[in-house]
């Protein structure tokens, strides 16, 4: 029972065990860190195997298919079969590839996602307690960007390189609204430590900053490169993007990284905007907090899968316009309004503050909606239904443009 109230006693027990082996205290601490890091890293890695099954099944049901259902009950063992298959595939390395970089890219890709985990608070007193955690998340995210650039480069294939350029352009473009949206919870909690941010959420930040939450969520999906923002590796249209020359386990690592990143996005959304591990009884029983965090993260992850199953892809010019001309200015305005209003409402209680910010967010959204209507009117001629006819969307082919060469 003591364990349920304070899981850290396991750490103490292990430390005593290591000391009992005759290790020096500092060496015992180091060994503890290694054990902790292994536990924290293997957990998500094994969880990915389930995620792959879940996503395939969920998307299949959305699309009115059955999904994996042959291997094991409900096809649960399918991912294991896939792993076995991938493990025994031939590891092809293109003849002219840059060998070192070619090996490094998939490792970096997965490690970049795993490295997000030590910053995440998993419960009261357990998990990450990094003083600059929010920026740490952004910093680690750059590793994935580099992985893609290296992957595209090292294979010595022009299409892979082109795919990598486009993917990186997309990723860095969407990083701007993410960094802006992350500033809002930091501002509300006055701390970059995620543990403090969770502690500050007496009222979930999604109430005080719904627009920032939405921007973070959308931009994160794009950052991970999921549908509807996955046109650079659209499996059904082009063969693949930057990882075209990868096969076997290396290829699988890119995908494992993507799936884990999607789930981690859910975790981060839960921590930043949905109260993290907080919930009834989570203070007394930290493991319950872990369960709450997992539940919230899984719901958010399900929304990501749902979006994947429901939305068509966007075009690349729309994709980049969307972040630079919509999300970024919107995030800037939200940040400014939040900063001003938060100072004005400094004396008010947490609920009054949150509701004031909520109202402000609503007003911003109304203005944005009106503005979007205006833009829509300018772009599209109004569709008028003829009597006896259903309105049909008109397709006007784009004006032919002169081919451009450089």
């Amino acid at each position, binding site marked *: 029972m003591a364990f349920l109230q304070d899981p850290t006693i396991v750490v103490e027990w292990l430390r005593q065990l290591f000391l009992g082996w005759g290790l020096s205290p500092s060496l015992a601490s180091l060994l503890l860190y290694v054990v902790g890091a292994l536990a924290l890293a293997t957990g998500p890695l094994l969880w990915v195997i389930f995620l792959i099954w879940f996503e395939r099944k969920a998307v299949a049901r959305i699309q009115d298919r059955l999904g994996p259902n042959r291997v094991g009950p409900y096809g649960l063992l399918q991912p294991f079969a896939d792993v076995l298959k991938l493990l025994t595939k031939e590891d092809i390395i293109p003849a002219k590839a840059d060998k070192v970089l070619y090996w490094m890219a998939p490792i970096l890709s997965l490690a970049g996602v795993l490295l997000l985990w030590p910053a995440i608070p998993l419960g009261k007193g357990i998990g990450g307690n990094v003083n*600059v955690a929010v920026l740490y998340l952004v910093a*680690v995210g*750059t590793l994935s960007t*580099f992985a893609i650039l290296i992957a595209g480069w090292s294979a010595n294939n022009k299409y892979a390189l082109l795919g990598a350029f486009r993917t990186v352009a997309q990723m860095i473009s969407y990083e701007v609204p993410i960094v802006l949206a992350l500033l809002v919870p930091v501002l509300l909690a006055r701390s970059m430590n995620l543990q403090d941010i969770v502690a500050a959420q007496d009222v979930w930040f999604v109430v005080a900053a719904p627009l920032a939450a939405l921007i973070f969520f959308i931009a994160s999906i794009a950052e991970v490169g999921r549908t509807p923002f996955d046109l650079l590796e659209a499996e059904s249209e082009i063969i693949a993007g930057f990882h075209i020359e990868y096969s076997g386990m290396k290829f699988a690592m890119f995908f494992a990284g993507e799936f884990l990143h999607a789930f981690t996005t859910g975790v981060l959304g839960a921590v930043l905007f949905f109260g993290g591990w907080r919930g009834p009884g989570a203070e007394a029983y930290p493991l319950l907090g872990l369960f709450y965090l997992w539940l919230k993260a899984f719901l958010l992850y399900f929304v990501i899968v749902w979006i994947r199953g429901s939305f068509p892809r966007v075009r690349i010019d729309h994709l980049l316009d969307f972040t630079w001309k919509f999300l970024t200015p919107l995030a800037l305005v939200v940040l400014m309004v939040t900063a001003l209003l938060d100072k004005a409402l400094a004396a008010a209680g947490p609920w009054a503050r949150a509701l004031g910010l909520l109202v402000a967010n609503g007003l911003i959204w109304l203005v944005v909606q009106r503005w979007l209507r205006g833009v829509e009117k300018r772009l599209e001629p109004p569709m008028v239904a003829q009597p006896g006819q259903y309105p049909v969307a008109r397709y006007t082919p784009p004006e032919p443009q002169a081919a451009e060469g450089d």
Partner: protein
Amino acid sequence: MVTTFVFVLTAAVMLVAALIAVLKDNLVHAAMGLVVTLFGTAVLFVLLESYFLAVAQVVIYVGAIAILIVFSIMLTRRVGAHWGRQTNATWPWALLTAGVLTVLFALMVRGWDPDAVLPAAAGVPEDITARLGAALVDPNGYVVPFEVASVLLLAALIGAVYVAWGGRKAEKETQG
């Protein structure tokens, strides 16, 4: 003890990577060397307990500056083409200058250890990031560098966009 070990390891890796960055003919490898050096600098910052600047170093240098550099290298050459020599004919003079400079610097800083009354023992305060933030907008502190930095970056953006990109129309005209 651990700190010393990590410091020596990081410094060694950093310097080797820096050498790769300036010696390799393959510029992509050189850029990777630069990235490792930048990362090593971030590790040194962690050892110096300025955590905010360590992550800022990774976000700005590795995440943005290095990406820009790698982009520029990859955009301006043929995939798989031979790199060729990347050094000047006058490289021995460069080596001499750099060597003399380094030796002079090293000789200069050799004895700089204010060991007896080290203020370092006071340690870094917990809220150093907040203090930095307050100092950056404090009228009696560093508000001028802060605002000048924003103007500088705005000017840099305008200048860079202006130089690199003539706008869609101009672009079409020049290329016919």
